[in-house]
């Protein structure tokens, strides 16, 4: 759907985007991660055609980016976003839809559909300044997806949203992805990424540090840790106990050791097993490990 080939954007003081290549499939939710100032926004601005790359290509369905055609394909919700405060909500949605190339009738249908879907029908004549922050974020989301984009680019979409509205938007994102919309989800909030994205790329200082399927990455960085909780004391088992907490053990296995051997042991000893699971590293841990000791990572950790 969307392919980035050796994209570069250099500014006078820094290499904002330094040779990034990515591939985003149709209907996939792709997480773009990185600390502040890593180059996410610069990358997204090139993908949306707001700025031009110094070199490299942006391909939509194999075609090089062309404002006249592909602008309509894209729905972009920038990190720095807002609306006209004094404008009525209905008019605002209509205006932004028409700027995306919809005619009045199409735009009206879409607005009605989305306003109904997200319980916003009574908002039409309100002004943005009368809305709460969460409400205006919801409106912002609607104006981004009104024109049925094929590629949806969301930069920190959940910032400023309460849990209830976050959940609503999250469900909408899943729904759109099921309909075949490719979604780029840029954030520095790892727990959201784990929940939502299938594929991710971690960017630091303009470069891709890490890329791939979320589960695959977690497996790549796993440390063979297992959590076991039993009522009895664990005895007579050969392994490195990393941590013991009440009745809970965290064990690190050797590479050739079978996890089933522990279960076997527990059963043989007639232990009462409450929990047994593999501990995969969280993305947060992996990323901190990856960007550690770089200048930008300090902000990231905060």
């Amino acid at each position, binding site marked *: 759907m969307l392919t980035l080939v050796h994209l570069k954007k250099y500014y*006078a003081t820094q290499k904002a985007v330094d040779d990034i290549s990515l591939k985003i499939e149709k209907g996939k939710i792709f997480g773009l991660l990185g600390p502040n100032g890593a180059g996410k926004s610069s990358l997204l*601005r090139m993908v*949306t*055609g*707001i*700025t031009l790359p110094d070199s490299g290509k942006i391909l939509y369905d194999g075609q090089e980016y062309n*404002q006249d055609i592909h*602008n309509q394909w*894209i729905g*972009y*919700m*920038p990190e*720095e*976003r*807002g*609306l*006209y*405060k*004094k*404008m009525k909500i209905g008019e605002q949605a209509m*205006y*932004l839809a*028409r*700027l*995306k190339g919809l005619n009045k009738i199409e735009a009206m249908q879409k607005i009605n559909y989305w306003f109904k879907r997200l319980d916003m029908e009574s908002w039409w004549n309100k002004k943005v300044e009368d809305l709460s922050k969460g409400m205006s974020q919801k409106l*912002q989301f609607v*104006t981004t997806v009104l024109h049925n984009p094929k590629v949806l680019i969301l930069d920190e979409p959940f910032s400023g949203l309460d849990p209830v509205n976050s959940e609503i938007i999250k469900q909408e994102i899943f729904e759109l992805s099921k309909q075949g919309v490719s979604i780029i989800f840029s954030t520095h909030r790892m727990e959201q990424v784990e929940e939502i994205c299938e594929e991710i790329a971690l960017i630091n200082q303009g470069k891709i540090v890490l890329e791939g399927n979320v589960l695959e990455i977690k497996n790549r960085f796993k440390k063979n840790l297992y959590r076991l909780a039993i009522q009895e004391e664990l005895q007579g088992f050969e392994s490195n106990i990393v941590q013991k907490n009440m009745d809970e053990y965290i064990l690190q296995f050797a590479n050739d050791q079978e996890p089933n051997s522990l279960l076997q042991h527990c059963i043989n000893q007639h232990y009462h097993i409450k929990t047994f699971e593999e501990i995969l590293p969280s993305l947060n841990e992996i990323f901190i490990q990856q960007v550690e000791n770089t200048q930008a990572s300090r902000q990231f950790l905060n």
Partner: protein
Amino acid sequence: MNKIFIILQREYLTRVKKKSFLILTFLVPILIFGASLLMVYIALQGEEKQKIVVNDESGIFFHRLDKKSKTYTFFAEAPKGNETNRDFAKRVEADIYLHILPFQNSRPDSILIYKEGGVSLGTSLFLSTQLDNIYHVKQMEEAGIDKAKIDSIQNFSLPIKSYDLKDNKETNSAIASGIGYMMGIMIYLVIFIYGSGVMRGVMEEKTNRIAEVVISSVKPFQLMMGKILGIGLVGLTQFLLWGTLIILLQFLLPLIIPSLGDLMQARENIVTAMPASEMPNMGSSDSLAMIQSIMNQNWGLIISCFIFYFLGGYFIYASLFAAVGSLVNEDPQEAQQLTLPVSMPIIFGFIILMTTLKEPNSSLSVFGSMFPLTSPIVMMGRIPYGVPVLQLILSMGLLIIGFILITWMSGKIYRTGILLYGKKTTWKEVLKWLRHS
């Protein structure tokens, strides 16, 4: 193109639908009109008709006084016995007491005016003109000049006319400078009011963070142009409405309030009877000649030039103001600093306009009318005096080139500035953008 139109439409409608627009549009003509009526009203009615009691011991003046005056009524009466002036005035209920002492050697010894609280300048001017005049006529009569002769002398003023050496056409510098001044000021105001309107619009989009949302749908240049065109149209609408309303008021008000009719008439009388010192170089205050001279102006040229320079000036400055607006972050004070380089040339233009009205062909004026940043204001001051065709073409050409260059430059600044948040931009950086992007 279509997207520019959608943007233009929004910019136009949101502004025109605002209450403040309606209030300003309808209030300004009413205020202007009302103020001028009020002035006339005060001039006429502010003082009630004043009663002047005349004790004319010379016997020359009273019957010759102009009894048609709207402000004063005259009647003759002399104090009795040793009544004081004050008691006398009180008894006859006079506001003013004019005491003309008997003549000695055919000259009045002295003429005394009394009034409670002192004599006003208006009264004293009115009376002295009247009395002087009566005395001079009397003198001439005594010298044996007959009445008809005196009248014809009095009603004659010298036929002074000025001509343009080039085409022998009659010129009227007062009219020319009046027209030039009006048009120059109008363009100056338009640039400032609507130009800074564009700047505020851009700042609003940037501080509300809507700019990036919109720019993901349209090119920055389209957004900028849509805004400039939309606000320009708002300005045109406002001017048209003002013009129409003022003309309508002129006709309608006297119908609605009949007593205003007299007032209007009086206003015209005051205007045409304005003393010569207030209208320099006018020769005579003959309103017919003035109207003739206004008609003689090449209005086709003036109006088409006005429209050209109006648009040119607005577009050049609107795009500059848009660029400045895109550099501002949250701080309005920052806006003031950044606006300075843009407002300087406008103010220079205005200063040059002032000298142009006196000397339309001085080298400063010619330069000012060529330089694209000042020409919209300065050239309007020169046109009513007549400008060589070559200069006019050159000035217009330079304005078009200047417009293209500046819009291109502003577009570049705007494109970068509108997406830059939270950092204070210096002019040095801006120059870098111009060179690199």
